[in-house]
């Protein structure tokens, strides 16, 4: 059963990764990152049960806290740039290149 959970987690992680690559809306991109973090959490929880210690759950808990803080900062940045450019597309922020 553990393997199943892990494969699910891997799938979700990969889907999240692909999402980051294909979506242009910065918020959606960020949501995909969150999906990846969730996938990690699933892995942690699964491994916690597998290994018989609670460290995994603790870590998952910490990840949630970190993610929450990260979301705040991230969204604040995204909103700032949206206000400047009237666009949430990540492709529009490409002045810095080469």
């Amino acid at each position, binding site marked *: 059963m553990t393997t199943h959970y892990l494969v699910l987690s891997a799938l*979700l992680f990969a889907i999240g990764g692909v999402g980051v690559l294909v979506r242009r809306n910065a918020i*959606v991109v960020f949501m995909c990152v969150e999906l990846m973090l969730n996938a990690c*959490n699933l892995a942690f929880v699964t491994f916690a049960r597998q290994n018989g210690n609670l460290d995994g759950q*603790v870590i998952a808990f910490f990840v*949630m806290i970190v993610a929450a803080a990260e979301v705040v*900062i991230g969204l604040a940045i995204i909103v700032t740039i949206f206000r400047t450019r009237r666009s949430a597309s990540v492709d529009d922020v490409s002045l810095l290149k080469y």
Partner: protein
Amino acid sequence: MGESITFWVLAVISVIAALGLVFSRRAVYSALMLGVVMISLAVLYAVQDAPFLAAVQIIVYTGAVMMLFLFVLMLVGVDSSDSLVETIRGQRFWAILAGLGFAALLALGIGNAVVGAPRGLAAATQAGNVPSLAELIFTRHVFAFEVTSALLITAALGAMVLAHRERSEPKPTQKDLSRQRFVAFGKTGKNPAPLPGPGTYARHNAIDMPALLPDGTISPLSVNRYIARYEESQGILPPEVARVLEQEEAAQRANGHSTPTLADEAGDDGPDTEPMTDEGVVAGRVVGARGEARSEEDGK
């Protein structure tokens, strides 16, 4: 057996939802899909002896984080949607190739690992899940726990920095404001009174229902110009409203000056509430460019 069923159901749901997150055009749908994934995962946590985490997942993630996402989405424009055209050459191909490859690699790696039966958490959670977690958090991981406070402070501070603008002058009181209004009235004849809301004396007060004057005619002041514009484009503008607007326009041309309208006031609110239109984006760009130019100037 029960776990299996739960897993398979939720696994399918969460994968589909994840795919939905990635592939739905509208950002709001994506957000909702993410919510679905999160809730599914919460259940899976619960199934895997992590009731506390399941709760936290629902409360913190789905409850707080997702709401934040939605909030920002609303701010940015709820109906914004990505165009389907990929502008970076080869991006999609490589992305999907990399995604598949990566998934295959992970699956292969995990599948290859010899994983025995789960040891279970019975031994670790003799004192119950939450107390045991608490013990770990407050002993072994106490330092990490303490440091997360820095993270949270940073987050708060960051949000403040980016979103909050400190007032540099005292907030005008009601008295100040009404004095201002009358000064303006004296100078320009601008109506000092509040504008009529929609639906006054009318059948209902929906936003698209103009107020009626005592004589039963429509008050042009109460016509929401955005809606009017929209309805006009859809061809469903009520004829009486159209008439009133035409009259008003004619009067304006005759007077040579405009009377304040709702639309003007709305426009004064600043660009944040402006609808997400193409012109808006262009305007924003222009503003941005101008801002750039100016900010370069003030380096002196």
